């Protein structure tokens, strides 16, 4: 995905359910470097958006998916990745 202003390839972040509501945001794009650790991406968001973003995205039980695959720990992410944050699922 390319940033429409800079033309850079950017990461796309998506938020669902209670996390989307807490952040009042369902989607945003972020310029990141190749191999950025997820924790660093969250540091950037905390600076740009506020500490409440760090709290919401690092709370217990928050699930993270990169390119629609669940990930654990602190994986490295890249420009072009789709990074999703969501609470435990409750379908069915």
């Amino acid at each position, binding site marked *: 995905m390319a940033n429409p202003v800079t033309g850079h390839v950017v990461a796309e972040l*998506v938020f*669902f*359910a*209670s996390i989307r*509501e807490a952040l009042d945001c369902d989607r945003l794009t972020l310029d990141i470097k190749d191999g950025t650790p997820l924790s660093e991406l969250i540091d950037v968001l905390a600076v740009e958006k506020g500490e409440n973003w760090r709290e919401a995205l690092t709370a217990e039980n928050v699930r993270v*998916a990169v390119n*629609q695959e669940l990930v654990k720990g602190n994986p490295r992410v890249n420009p072009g990745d789709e990074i*999703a944050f*969501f*609470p*435990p*699922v*409750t*379908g*069915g």
Partner: protein
Amino acid sequence: MVEVNYRVVVQEPAFSQQDEYERLRTSALNVGAVVTFAGTVRDINDDDTVTALRLEHYPGMTEKEIQKIIAEAAERWVVIDATVIHRVGDLHPGDEIVFAGVASEHRGDAFEACAFIMDYLKTRATFWKKESTTQGDRWLTTRQSDVDAAEAWREPSLKE
């Protein structure tokens, strides 16, 4: 990977039990058993009166997760064909939320594969429910009984 026919749909409208059943039943000549599950919105949850339910999901990831669940079921049991239809959007008590169906040669496989698909769907497919009750709105949280049900499939079953 075992080859398996499947149909996975996330949609707002209601589904037709008859159409989904017929598709499974006539999927192949060796179908001997069709098991279906339908889940509906209950009027009471955790002792509060439910007036409405809003379901959201992660388009793309949801369908992939359900396909993985069906593929895993087909590794463990004889699955000729399987269907999962999950509704999203605004629902009300009595409305159907989810359909799961499995066509197999024999009933044991059809029952186990269908129950497995539902248990895994509950804990893996990216859906979220927000409930409106007479006590206010709330996001549902995972039930330990659902986690336990999915976990139980990791153990060797008495019936295998």
